[in-house]
């Protein structure tokens, strides 16, 4: 029997001819990732068990992004612990204030993850790198510690759902609308323990930023990983920044899937996930009287250059509605720099928005945009759980950058095509 794309990558990294769904394997790792929240727990475990070196100084990335620049003394202590660990163990890919970015925007941008890799990260959105045709999945801090020590991790080989994409996105729609639409269709546990494999003619029309955004939210459907077929767009993207050789894996013709779901991209409208689960989706045009207090455009889901470009196009020459606070966070230093060069930052500030250095900050209710009781936000982030961005009675609506920017101008949630 044939293997899915994920199964083929896992088999190759386990040194096996073939694997099947449900099989427990030990796989070689190409990258182990942690951030300023999850790494301290891993470092404590790593030290407690007395490991004296890491498996490969080039294959560990520590990105200070969640509470960085440090939001308080405790956060500063955690970052200091990571900084010291990186220095002590000679970790090559350590990114701190000034050269950091949000991890899942930064690693692809730096060419640290590529097609055919196996990557684990102590952050649930590590599934983002599946956009490049890698097997990439989120784990906890103990798995990260074990990965740093041995360069291996155990996995139960997942089965898969195949998403066959057809058609082309319509105006003001992007990868975010597609993944919200899919989560709305299959639910927050619709792909539990499984791979989501994206393929089809429609897939090839999606930009790398669209793919990164979609793979990023595979976890919001409960998936183990999201993965895209490798095409010219992938190869071009990776070769422009590659740090190590890559291998292209493709699913076998006779691979077995739990389900095949056809998605017509042209039928997808600007989509919004209502509180308090990413599966509570509606067309933005159906939401007519949701007044917003805050808008956040950024995060590992939507803080990339094309997201900034979309926001700038909508906000150019406009001003956000009175009473709305709009926070825009380019995800990496180089995206930020490009936004300055292209004049986007000027557009944002003239429109009444606040622009920040890269940070995960508001997405997880850390800092830089916390909501008060009963406040309502529209955000291009990935989760709208109870209390995620602040007070437990606050509400978060998830959307694309186009919908968020248009809504900030109107003061109410709206379809960007209405502007």
């Amino acid at each position: 029997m044939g293997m899915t794309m994920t199964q083929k990558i896992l088999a190759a990294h386990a040194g096996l001819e073939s694997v099947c769904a449900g099989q427990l394997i030990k796989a070689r790792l190409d990258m182990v990732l942690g951030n300023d929240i999850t790494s301290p727990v891993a470092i404590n475990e790593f030290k407690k068990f007395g490991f004296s070196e890491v498996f490969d100084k080039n294959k560990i990335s520590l990105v200070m992004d969640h509470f960085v620049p440090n939001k308080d003394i405790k956060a500063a202590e955690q970052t200091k612990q990571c900084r010291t660990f990186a220095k002590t163990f000679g970790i090559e890919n350590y990114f701190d204030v000034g050269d950091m970015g949000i991890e899942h925007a930064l690693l692809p941008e730096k060419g640290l993850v590529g097609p055919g890799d196996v990557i684990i990260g102590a952050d649930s959105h590590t599934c983002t790198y599946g956009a490049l045709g890698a097997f990439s999945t989120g784990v906890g801090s103990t798995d990260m510690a074990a990965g740093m020590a041995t360069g291996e991790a155990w996995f139960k080989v997942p089965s898969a759902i195949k998403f066959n994409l057809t058609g082309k996105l319509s105006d003001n729609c992007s990868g975010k609308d597609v993944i919200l639409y899919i989560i709305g269709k299959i639910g927050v546990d619709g792909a539990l323990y499984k791979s989501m494999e994206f393929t089809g003619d429609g897939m090839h029309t999606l930009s790398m930023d669209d793919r990164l955004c979609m793979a990023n939210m595979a976890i919001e459907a409960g998936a183990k990983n999201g993965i895209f077929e490798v095409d010219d767009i992938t190869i071009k993207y990776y070769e422009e920044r590659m740090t190590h050789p890559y291998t292209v894996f493709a699913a076998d013709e006779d691979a077995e899937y739990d389900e095949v779901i056809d998605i017509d991209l042209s039928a997808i409208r600007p989509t919004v996930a209502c509180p308090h689960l990413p599966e509570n989706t509606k067309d933005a045009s159906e939401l007519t009287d949701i007044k917003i207090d805050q808008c956040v455009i950024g995060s590992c889901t939507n803080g990339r250059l094309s997201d900034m470009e979309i926001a700038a196009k909508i906000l150019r020459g406009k001003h956000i509605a009175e009473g709305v606070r709009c926070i825009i966070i380019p995800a990496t230093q180089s995206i930020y720099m490009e936004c300055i060069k292209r004049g986007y930052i000027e557009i944002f500030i003239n429109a009444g928005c606040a622009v920040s250095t890269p940070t995960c900050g508001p997405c997880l209710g850390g800092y830089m945009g916390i909501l008060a009781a009963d406040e309502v936000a529209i955000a291009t982030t990935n989760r709208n759980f109870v209390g995620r961005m602040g007070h437990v009675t606050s509400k978060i609506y998830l959307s694309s950058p186009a919908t968020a920017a248009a809504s900030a101008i109107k003061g109410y949630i709206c379809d960007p095509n209405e502007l």
Partner: protein
Amino acid sequence: MIAHGIVHKYGDNVDTDVIIPARYLNTANHKELASHCMEDIDKEFTSKVNVGDIMVGGANFGCGSSREHAPIAIKESGISVVIAETFARIFYRNAINIGLAILECPEASAKIDAGDDVEVDFDTGIITNHTKTEQYKAQPIPPFIQEIIAKGGLLASIK
């Protein structure tokens, strides 16, 4: 091994943000994390939980963030085992890796109520509800995972 205690019951999709809100993730101190456990869905939890108590959830328990602080906070609160219809996969892995016992059992998840007096036999996977005089059978834990638990967690098993 046996766990025996009073049940704290929650619904479907209990996410790691409500188990331990991110605003408290500026520490890795177990006791401090436990002092905020379940705060955003059950303010009373930390004051009513006793050592040995059992947590029961619905489908997709532990969804969301990969923060290991979530199972750590639950374990440090004194919870002896979490029973759910299904677990989100990262939470499932993390719980095993840090030695928090978890069992998948749709029947127990559906029938057990808050406050029930429940006993779990890990060797047989039998869950006994003394309050309702019912028994449920949990999914057996795969041998590979039992081995990690027996060796005292993931790092102990590879060291």
